[in-house]
């Protein structure tokens, strides 16, 4: 049986499955050691995942951004990279319970749809197009991390208010840290995402002689942008707590996922 470098994605997926299961078991067993083990497994998966991305770049001459499986894999990689950077800086353990399953979910999309290594048609080979995809993905990664910390901030607020420790009590950092991290991630993610969308519109205008098509991907992206704008506005007004924030966050998450799944092919 011939092993192709492209198959390393399945090895990364296996690591992510194992890492996600381990982190969920650590939540049930409240075991810090298992949390650490999960992190190590996920980092191993991330390493293999990085190799896979490097392989795509080497073979096609551009980042993996041409279709749904590639974009999902690249987004998954970026989200974990941001999570890892935040873990190194703040040692936030609880975010793993949200981020690892999300990283896994996105890579499952890649594995199930399974048509990576698409060549980019020559007419799409432009700096504007590459910038659009990269900025959008980076923005979405920041926004996803922001959503995870919004959920954590709300969980912490609820625990402090009800005076009942939830299962996450020991894993979540201070309310202040959750608030600051969610706000920063949302603010940076939103700015980058907005620039990504604008470059997308510009690129679409240039290639289609019109602002953009209105397909699931585009509608989802704009709806998600509106949800995130509302969420950021809530933060700026100081009201990150409560049902309204959670509903907006859920709406933003669903819209983003629909938008990602709408990427059939550029």
């Amino acid at each position: 049986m011939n092993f192709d470098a492209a198959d390393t994605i399945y090895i990364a997926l296996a690591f992510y499955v194992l890492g996600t299961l381990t982190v969920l078991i650590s939540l049930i067993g409240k075991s810090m050691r298992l949390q650490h083990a999960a992190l190590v497994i996920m980092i191993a998966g991330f390493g293999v995942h990085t190799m896979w991305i490097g392989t795509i770049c080497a073979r096609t001459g551009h980042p993996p951004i041409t279709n749904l499986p590639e974009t999902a894999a690249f987004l998954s990689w970026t989200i974990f990279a941001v999570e890892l950077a935040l873990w190194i800086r703040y040692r936030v353990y609880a975010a793993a319970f949200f981020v690892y399953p999300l990283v896994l979910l996105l890579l499952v999309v890649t594995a199930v749809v399974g048509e990576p290594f698409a060549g980019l048609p020559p007419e799409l080979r432009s700096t504007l197009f590459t910038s659009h995809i990269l900025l959008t993905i980076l923005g979405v990664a920041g926004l996803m991390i922001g959503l995870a910390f919004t959920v954590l901030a709300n969980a912490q607020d609820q625990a402090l208010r009800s005076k009942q420790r939830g299962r996450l009590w020991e894993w979540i950092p201070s309310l202040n840290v959750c608030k600051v991290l969610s706000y920063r991630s949302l603010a940076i993610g939103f700015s980058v995402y907005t620039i990504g969308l604008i470059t997308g519109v510009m690129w679409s205008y240039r290639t289609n002689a019109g602002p953009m098509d209105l397909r699931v991907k585009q509608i989802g992206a704009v709806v998600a942008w509106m949800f995130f704008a509302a969420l950021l506005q809530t933060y700026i007004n100081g009201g990150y707590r409560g049902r309204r924030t959670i509903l907006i966050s859920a709406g933003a998450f669903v819209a983003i996922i629909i938008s990602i799944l709408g990427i059939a092919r550029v």
Partner: protein
Amino acid sequence: MALILIGLNHRTAPVQVRERLNVPEPKLPEVVRSLHEIDGVDGAALVSTCNRVEAIVSSRTEDVITKVVDWLAVQGGSDRESLENHLYILRHVDVVKHLCRVASGLDSMIIGEPQIGGQVRSAFQAAQDLGALDGLLQQVYSQTMRVAKRVRTDTAIGEHAVSIPYAAVELAKKIFGDLKGLQVLLLGAGEMGELTAEHLHKQSVKQVFVANRSYNRAVELAERFHGSAVQFDSIEENLATCDIVIASTSAPHYVIEPDQVQRALEARRNRNLFLIDLSVPRNINPDVAGIEGAYLYNVDDLQHVADANLELRQHKARDAEQIVVREVEDFRRRLVAQDAVPTIVELQQRLEVIRAAELEKCLRKLGPITAEQRSAIDLLTTQMVNKILHYPILELRDGAEEPQERESLRKTIRKIFGLAK
């Protein structure tokens, strides 16, 4: 080599017995020296805290036990018989296990308390500085501190506050993270409030403001925390600037109302406010708890936090006990293997000498043989010797639990194989 621990603690002896034996830190070197000078004692250390006094000695025989008990009786100025009722005597691996539990806080009055680890370290360090630790006690010392560190790192047993003031500090950290740069307002001069403010002050908060009906008393208290006294009527202004408010007055009514907190939070641009009501009757209207951004805890809430933490520590103590058991077993195996090494080496040398001599005799009788034949005979005899030695070596390494048993086994094997005693 015998390892022995003789001591008493808060469970076996009342305070009037413990206080007589307690050794203040400046006197510790002198007392350890006198313990080390007891005839037959090779290594000595003494752990003395308000809850325990324990003498740890290593010796060639267990005969020193009587002498150490006599020594303790002299130190405590009591007769041997009455002291013996409170003493426990531990031997060998039980000593290591006990010390690991003590240093990890598992044997403390408040499970997981962090100070005891430092006290055990100081006790052994003092003995080491005097040259009173022999090789065995050196190993026990490093093993004890290693296990204590692992227990604290792996289980975080000491991280949860079990008193009301510490519970308040812990909650403040859960809200604000780092407490540096925060401002604290202390209302009233209640004892619990003072204690809580003191703990917060130790966390390097930026400033402590004190408000009291008697301004002079407020000034006095503020000086203690290097803070500032404020007029009791200006509470609302301070609510807007302070992040943590401790109410501990004797007022029979509420001194902080929801509308004051609401206005303060607006002025604070929605930065959180932590309110701690330690007064009975309560000083902060409980409706404040419903305001977004305000976190109100009264004395019962804090007690519940402390109780829950105690329960958590007990739960973590079970994990810690397992760590101790595993680590002590590993240590025991290392010690036994270490003890057995000289005999094993001698045994191997002895049999190798016999094998080489017999092989030489045999080769002389056989006459000329090929190199392959010689090599085959050599291999055969080597394998026979190894197989003969296999079980004696295994027994020497793992065969006996107790040191006396091990010593007896070692002597028997030496006798059987004709090794020097």
